């Protein structure tokens, strides 16, 4: 059952931001998990529902994501200008950012004026994505819930021990806290299947937290679009 209010995770917002209208077969990069089409279909299919997300995503994760992309773009630019430059110099980049940057760099071989054109494409993608994120925040998201300072430290630390991911544990804690107080959300994620089951199991390990909080329904995006 999909409840009235859908709590969206970071992957959906970013997928929406990177949505490309014309979808073509990808021949350059293997094994991609992409959610652009899914994110747009989700918003369209459930347009009568209420979409929300948490303060942590809006004011921490998204700005961090955009900042990393800017840094990465600059490193790609430097490498396109001087192929001895190594992508990954900034310690703010994750390994997956560096891997992606290397792939983007190699795309230059497919263009006549390779370096300039790859950079042009990358810049356009970045700017279009930023605009799409702004659009998403103002037209799709109806409410931003659980201010960062109100996230239960114990709850998020508990989940951190299982996820080992600071962002994820804050977002999960935000969704659980909101659902406990409102009992009306379905959390939609681009993350792994069966996430709801895992969250319940982990919460059950701590009796005190288990009595205090309720885990919402969690749906993997591809199961519902």
């Amino acid at each position, binding site marked *: 059952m999909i409840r009235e209010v859908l709590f969206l995770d970071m*992957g959906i917002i*970013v997928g929406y931001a*990177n949505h490309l*209208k*014309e979808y073509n077969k990808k021949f350059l990069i293997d094994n991609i*998990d992409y959610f652009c089409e899914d994110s747009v279909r989700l918003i369209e299919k459930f347009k009568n529902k209420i979409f929300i997300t948490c303060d942590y995503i809006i004011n921490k994760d998204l700005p961090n994501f955009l900042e990393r992309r800017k840094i990465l773009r600059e490193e790609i630019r430097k490498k396109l200008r001087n192929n001895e*430059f190594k992508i990954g110099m900034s310690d703010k980049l994750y390994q997956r950012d560096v891997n992606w940057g290397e792939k983007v760099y190699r795309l230059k071989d497919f263009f006549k004026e390779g370096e*300039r*054109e790859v*950079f042009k494409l990358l810049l356009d993608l970045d700017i279009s994505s930023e605009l799409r994120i702004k659009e998403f925040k103002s037209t799709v998201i109806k409410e931003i819930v659980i201010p960062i300072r109100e996230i239960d430290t114990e709850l998020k630390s508990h989940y951190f021990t299982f996820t080992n991911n600071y962002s994820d544990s804050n977002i999960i804690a935000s969704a659980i806290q909101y659902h406990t107080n409102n009992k009306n959300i379905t959390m939609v994620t681009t993350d792994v299947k069966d996430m709801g089951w895992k969250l319940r199991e982990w919460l059950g390990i701590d009796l005190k937290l288990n009595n205090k909080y309720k885990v919402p329904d969690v749906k993997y995006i591809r199961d519902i679009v």
Partner: protein
Amino acid sequence: MLYIKTMVKKSKEMIKSKILEVLNDKPLSINKISTEVGSNWSTINELLKILKEENKVREIVTTDKIRVFKLLREDTYFDLPIDKKEREICYYFFDKIRNIWFDIKKKLIGKIEMQKILTDIVEELPSIHILKGLYLFGGMTVLKFDPSQQYSSQFKPKSEHEIEELIRSTIIKDYHDCKNVKQTMMNYYKKKNLSLYLIKEEINSIFTGNLNLDKEKFTDLLSDFLFYSPIKEDASQIVEIISEFVSLTIKLIKKCPKLEEIKYQIFETYNSIWLLVATYNFFDSLTEDTRYRDRREEIYEFYFYSKIKDRIQSSIEYLSHLDDILSRYSDISSETKLQLDNKTKMIRDSFVDMARVRK
């Protein structure tokens, strides 16, 4: 009494001269000046105050522990030092190029043209060593050229005839057909493969037309402008500013239906940023010279820091105004679209990997 007063005054004038002499090579602290000149600290301090009022020196570092002064030079850019030998070499070339230019083109040479030709020529003469760099309009020497000034020189090259031939052939081959300064600059940029300067000229041209009609071209040029920006680590703050300008302007291009109405604000911002970029370029290209290579930090601190700092501040203010303009167009009703050919769309699809953010 009058004799003693005259003696004291003369002595002060002599000390002032000596101060200017010791500052000729590089900026110095008051203590260092005092040691070099051989006068006490308070005399030097007092005379530096007078020299400041006479606009002959400037205080460039003022802290509790140290005060540093530099010589103000009217005839060099950024008050950079130039030794007598190099000055004579420049005078020689100013004179030769002016005469040969007039002989061929039958008109007087201007500042920009002179600097282009001179920097072009000395690159072909390895035995001639003058400091040069890339500034607002491309290559130029540290010494300013004043078209109204007569130049005579004591420099006597061994191969005077070859130099004259080189000047003549360069003007004829590369600049003879240039009808104006802009064409001279463009030829120079193409010859030296100065991509950033070529793009700068194209952007300037865009601003003379109707921005609403040239949106796609303008976007491409902005992308190129950022692409060809400096890549060294010490330029990172400047590149951030350029990146912010390009990003803001492209967003305005996508969202603002009447771009022509805000053209002036975009142009002012761009101009301010170009001034900043060019100043950094001049510093960077100058310090490629063997004489300055090991003194890069010192050259920056003494001659460029304050100008670059002011220009950064100015650019940030302009960007803030541009950001205010953009915020007025915050309502997006439909997805923005870039016209791409099929191959580019196919390549662009590969960028969807960005959706993976939490694995």
